[in-house]
């Protein structure tokens, strides 16, 4: 297939990533865990690491610092391609990290909970404003489908081209299908770009 490094010293696969976003408690880590080949991993970053000088550390031994946590998983596509899934921090206050997260992302899944649609508004705004392709996954883990897809679309003010998929983030097949919906969405965008080149 030809994605592997051409450097004979390193046979490293090519890494790609998909972001899993949405508000607090919508099931981001659950989705990552249900499709990942490893239990979701957690990594941390300092909130203001760049501003902490070593001189400031004197006398603060034992004092904690604020970290922001990221949960992520991994799917080995084949020997030449590996897909990482990153759950994004739910709180807007941590979105300064998103440049790091967003760079190199193929696209995103925004999870919504129909009982609390508003907690995912900011994620949708973010990807729309950045022009990052995304699909919306309606997490029906509580078994309540109290709104029609049309009502959800209207409440989210969703562009008609953005796919909306019902899912149960705990279910591997359902999680996989949300990711496949994103890939189909990217392929459709690809076909449109090829048919109508911008420049």
């Amino acid at each position, binding site marked *: 297939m030809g994605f592997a490094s051409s450097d004979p*010293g390193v046979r490293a696969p090519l890494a790609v990533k998909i972001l899993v976003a949405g508000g607090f408690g919508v099931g981001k880590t659950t989705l990552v865990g249900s499709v990942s080949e490893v239990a979701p991993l*957690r990594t941390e970053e300092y909130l203001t690491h760049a501003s902490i000088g070593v001189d400031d550390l004197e006398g603060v031994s034992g004092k904690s610092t604020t970290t922001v946590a990221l949960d992520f998983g991994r799917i080995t596509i084949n020997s030449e391609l590996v897909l990482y899934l990153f759950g994004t921090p739910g709180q807007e206050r941590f979105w300064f990290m998103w440049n790091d997260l967003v760079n190199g992302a193929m696209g995103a899944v925004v999870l919504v909970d129909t009982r609390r649609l508003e907690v995912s508004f900011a994620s949708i705004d973010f990807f729309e404003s950045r022009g990052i392709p995304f699909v919306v996954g309606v997490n029906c883990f509580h078994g309540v489908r109290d709104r029609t897809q049309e009502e959800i679309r209207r409440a989210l003010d969703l562009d008609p081209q953005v796919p909306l998929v019902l899912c149960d983030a705990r279910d591997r097949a359902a999680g996989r299908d949300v990711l496949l919906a994103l890939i189909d969405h990217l392929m459709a965008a690809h076909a449109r770009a090829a048919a109508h080149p911008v420049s």
Partner: protein
Amino acid sequence: MKHWTEGFDDDHADEPLVRPYTITGGRTTPERDDLTLITLVTVISEAPADNGPGLRRLQPEHRTILALCKQPLAVAEIASALNLPVSVTKILIGDLIEAGHVRSRPPLAFAQAGGLPGMSILEAVRDGLRKL
């Protein structure tokens, strides 16, 4: 309204801030800015038994990275395995790149390809996901 710390792991809240930056010799920012969360790191040489001249003394964490990266591993995975923040991990990986112990492979840069990954990549991901 929820407090902003709610839901965050505070298992390590009592750990001092000093330790991670002791590992890096006091450096708080990576010298390299080309390492991303999914840059893949692979060992290309074994660590010398004793540190050679001109090499920054290897910390145990450096040696752990060398042991981990016999197979290609992403920066985020290394940080997770070391239980260290990403920025500290990047500094350590930068040391190993500089010393010639590891190589890094950056992820695909979609920004240079009109913002979309190539069709062949998309097809490969789709085929891989279908096997899940």
